C-alpha cells in the first residue's frame, strides 16, 4: 500500500517494474490459458490478485514498467514485443492449445491477425478490467458489452490528481520568486516588506489556481459545463479565485483586472494537461484546443504582467 501511494505521487513511479517472461499462477498445465500482461508492478499485482485460485500462465511483456494501455499507445506493448516473448519462452512447446488472451486495452498496440499469421496462436481480447477475467474465461472467452467499456469514475480521477498537482507545484517556487520580485521592486530598491505584503495574495491565488486546475477540475470533470478542458479549467479557476478577490485593494482596478484575467487562465492551462490522463480524449481534439488556447495563454500572461506593472507605476505616482 505504501509503495502504491509512493508510486502514485511519482517517487519511483518510473521504475516500478517486474522482470518480463512467463509466470505460472497456481499449477498450470498444457491446457491452461495464457494471459498477457505488462511489467508495470501495479497492474501485475492487481492481475495476480484477481487470479487467485485459478491455474494459468501469465506472459509478461517488457513495457519498461508502463501500464498496458499507455504502453500499447506507444507500441512497447505491441505485436513485435509479443512475438519476441512468445518465441523466447517457446510458448508453443509449453501448451497444447493455440489461445492467447490479451487485455483489451492492449489492442491499440497489437494486430491479432499478424500474431495468428506468424505463430498460429489466436488472440482472444479479454475484458478491460482484471476483475472480469474470471467471468470472461468461465463464459468461454466471451466479454459482455459492459466488460469492453472503459470507465472514468470519481475514484479513477482522484488517484490521478497527485500526478497533476506534483508537476504543477514543481514550477511554483519559480512563480513565487517572480511574484516576490515584482512586488519587492520599489523606486528605493527591493523592499522585502513590500514583496511580502504585496505578493502574498498572489502567492495564495497561485495555490488556489493549482488546486482548481489540477485537483478540482479533474475531480468534478463531468459536472463542469462545456467539453473543452481549457474552458472547464477556466470556469473552475474563476469560481475559486473570485471569492478571494477581497485579498487585494478593491480600488486598484488594474490589479483586480490582472488577477481576474491571469488566474482563471492559469487554472485552465493546468486543467488542459489532464487531457493526457483521461480515458476519453483524443489527439485531434487536444490539438484543436491547443491551437486556440496556447496563443491565448501567452497573450493573457503578457497583458496581465503589463497590468500589474501599470498598477505599480500608478501607485508610485501617487506616493
Amino acid at each position, binding site marked *: 500500500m505504501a509503495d502504491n501511494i509512493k508510486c502514485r505521487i511519482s517517487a519511483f513511479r518510473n521504475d516500478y517494474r517486474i522482470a518480463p517472461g512467463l509466470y505460472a499462477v497456481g499449477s498450470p498445465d498444457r491446457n491452461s490459458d495464457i494471459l498477457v500482461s505488462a511489467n508495470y508492478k501495479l497492474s501485475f499485482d492487481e492481475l495476480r490478485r484477481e487470479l487467485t485460485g485459478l491455474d494459468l500462465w501469465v506472459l509478461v511483456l517488457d513495457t519498461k514498467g508502463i501500464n498496458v494501455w499507455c504502453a500499447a499507445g506507444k507500441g512497447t506493448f505491441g505485436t513485435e514485443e509479443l512475438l519476441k516473448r512468445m518465441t523466447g519462452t517457446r510458448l508453443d512447446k509449453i501448451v497444447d492449445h493455440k489461445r492467447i488472451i490479451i487485455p483489451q486495452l492492449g489492442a491499440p498496440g497489437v494486430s491479432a491477425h499478424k500474431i495468428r499469421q506468424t505463430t498460429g496462436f489466436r488472440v482472444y481480447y479479454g475484458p478491460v478490467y482484471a476483475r472480469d477475467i474470471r467471468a470472461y474465461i468461465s463464459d468461454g472467452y466471451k466479454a459482455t458489452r459492459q466488460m469492453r467499456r472503459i470507465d472514468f469514475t470519481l475514484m479513477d480521477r482522484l488517484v490521478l490528481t497527485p500526478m497533476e498537482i506534483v508537476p504543477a507545484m514543481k514550477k511554483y517556487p519559480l512563480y513565487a520568486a517572480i511574484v516576490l520580485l515584482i512586488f519587492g521592486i520599489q523606486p528605493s530598491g527591493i523592499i522585502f516588506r513590500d514583496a511580502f505584503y504585496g505578493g502574498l495574495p498572489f502567492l495564495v491565488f497561485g495555490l488556489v489556481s493549482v488546486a482548481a486546475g489540477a485537483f478540482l477540475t479533474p475531480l468534478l470533470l463531468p459536472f463542469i459545463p462545456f467539453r473543452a478542458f481549457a474552458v472547464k479549467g477556466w470556469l473552475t479557476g474563476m469560481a475559486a479565485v473570485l471569492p478571494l478577490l477581497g485579498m487585494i485593494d478593491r480600488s486598484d482596478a488594474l490589479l483586480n483586472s490582472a488577477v481576474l484575467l491571469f488566474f482563471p487562465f492559469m487554472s485552465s492551462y493546468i486543467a488542459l494537461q489532464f487531457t*493526457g490522463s483521461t480515458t476519453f480524449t483524443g489527439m485531434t481534439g487536444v490539438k484543436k484546443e491547443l491551437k486556440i488556447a496556447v496563443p491565448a495563454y501567452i497573450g493573457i500572461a503578457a497583458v496581465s504582467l503589463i497590468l500589474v506593472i501599470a498598477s505599480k507605476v500608478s501607485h508610485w505616482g501617487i506616493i
Partner: protein
Amino acid sequence: MKYLKNVTSIKINPDRCTGCGVCLEVCPHDVLRVGNGKASIIDRDSCMECGACVSNCAFAALSVDKGVGCAAALINSMITGGEPTCGCSSSDSGCC
C-alpha cells in the same frame, strides 16, 4: 463523458470492410456497430483515437490519426518541432 464534438479522425472504408466485427470487440467506447454486413460509426464523439480498431483490422478498412492526446506532449512538440511524446519514452524510463 465525451470530448469535443465532430473532431475525431476515425474513418471507415466500407468497400474494404467485411463486417467481421473485430473492431467492435476492441473498441473501449462502443463507437462502432455492424449492420448489413458492414461496420459503421454510431457514436463518433466517443472515439478517443486509440487506434485499437485500426491495428486489428485485417482488411485495412479503418483509419485514425492515432497519437498521444496529451497537452504537455503536444506543446513540447510545438516548441521543439519534434514528434509528440510523453517526454520520456525515448529512454528506458516511462511516464504517461
